[in-house]
């Protein structure tokens, strides 16, 4: 299991051929209190860089982009009732959606933990 990051502050935790996507602790901190999450629909086909979800804080809406190409296999419905899970537990309970990774090669273009930590220093 490995986790990769985008410069836009999404993470993708890779478990086999599935990626679990969410936003980083750094991103949730920057956004502040999250009040609404627009989830993708299951089965939606995304190209790397497509808008996959929208996370809204009190202040503003922020688009969440697909870190890799693939098909949405599951969404975190708990966020509909409790969007604040992204603030309290972004990397576990606050995951946003799962994606069947179409091309594992997409992952090579993403940041590893050390590079992402550098970016947000």
């Amino acid at each position, binding site marked *: 299991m490995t986790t990769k990051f985008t410069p836009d502050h999404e993470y993708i935790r890779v478990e086999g051929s599935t990626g679990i996507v969410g936003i980083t602790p750094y991103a949730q901190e920057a956004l*502040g209190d999250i*009040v*609404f999450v*627009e989830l993708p629909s299951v089965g939606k086909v995304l190209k790397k860089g497509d808008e996959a979800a*929208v996370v*809204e804080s*009190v*202040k503003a*809406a922020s688009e969440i982009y697909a870190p890799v190409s693939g098909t949405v296999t599951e969404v975190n419905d708990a966020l509909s009732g409790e969007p604040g899970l992204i603030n309290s537990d972004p990397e576990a309970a606050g995951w946003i959606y799962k994606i069947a990774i179409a091309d594992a090669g997409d992952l090579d273009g993403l940041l590893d933990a050390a590079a992402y930590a550098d970016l947000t220093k």
Partner: protein
Amino acid sequence: MAETSAEDLKTTPLFERHTAAGGRMVPFGGYSLPVQYPSGIMTEHKWTREQAGLFDVSHMGPSFLALNNPSGDAEADHAAIAAIIEPLICGDIAGLKPGQVRYTLLLNETGGAIDDLMVARSPLHPGSLYIVVNAGTKDGDFARIEAAAGGKAKLTRADADNALLALQGPEAVNVIAHIAPAAADLGFMTYGAFPWNGTTLIIARSGYTGEDGFEILVSADHAPAFWDALLADTRVKPIGLGARDSLRLEAGLPLYGHDLNETISPTEADLGFAVSKRRREAADFPGAARILAEREGKLSRIRVGLIVEGAPAREGAEILDASGVAIGVVTSGGFAPSLGKAIALGFVPPEHAAHGTKLQVSVRGRPQAAEVVPTPFVPHRYFRKAKTS
């Protein structure tokens, strides 16, 4: 703060206090101000509704307008200063009692709002007014007022040498009672001068959150100590711009540059109350022909409150009728922490403005249900003095 120097932002006398408290500083109206503190917008918002929130609003434009040559006859001098400002605005200033504060609008010749502002009659100095305008428009507003004053009165800006603070919330009166005891006896929309630690505070019982509270002008020299004195009370926490915006939105209060601009009249903005009766009868304010016709029913759009289902509808979102036809636009929108729902202010034709009308808003191209509701979304509590439990 690299961004601050890069953008040549002004700072308020409380800048160091904000950064020391962990405020996240952002550019706003040409100033570096905290959008939030570490506790976050939601917590700050709720704290203000339940206790007392302290806001730095030093970016706004406090000023004094005073006759150059007062006669010494208090009523005549007030009439003379009122006669200078009234041709610019729609409010009855001549009718103010000493110490009374009035919300009014600076209008252009077609009745559009150049700004919304507070004009107050000095309780002590006949022929003198205390005027507070918005940050983004203050230079133009002051120039306009100075031009109207000609050689008869002098406008003195108080924005550079002072801090302006707002203390808002149900506990604000109890907090102020310890700082300036006599100020706790002010009525809503009145002001006075009160001594504190060798300086004079100008305190108005007013604010823009819907809560009871005070707006306080304090000299820049004394501002940090005064800020500390207020925060020494455990009922007070500092509140940033983010919660300031969500509080005023819940209170259904328009924000200049968003719900008000030079094309929007007071009638359209649902601020008809700010067009005083005496001024209506005299029809002697800018844009009177338009505004009086609008009051008679010739109105093409009016500001309404909307409860929005689902994602917040932000400024610029289209408002649609039940069948999906675009009829207006959201001018302020977001999430209401007190209600746990999305709310918005926007303009629609009057035939769609009745409370209970089912409309839609377009968020990212998708229609969502919305309903016209009365504003304020959260009841105003301007006179509340009882402690909440």
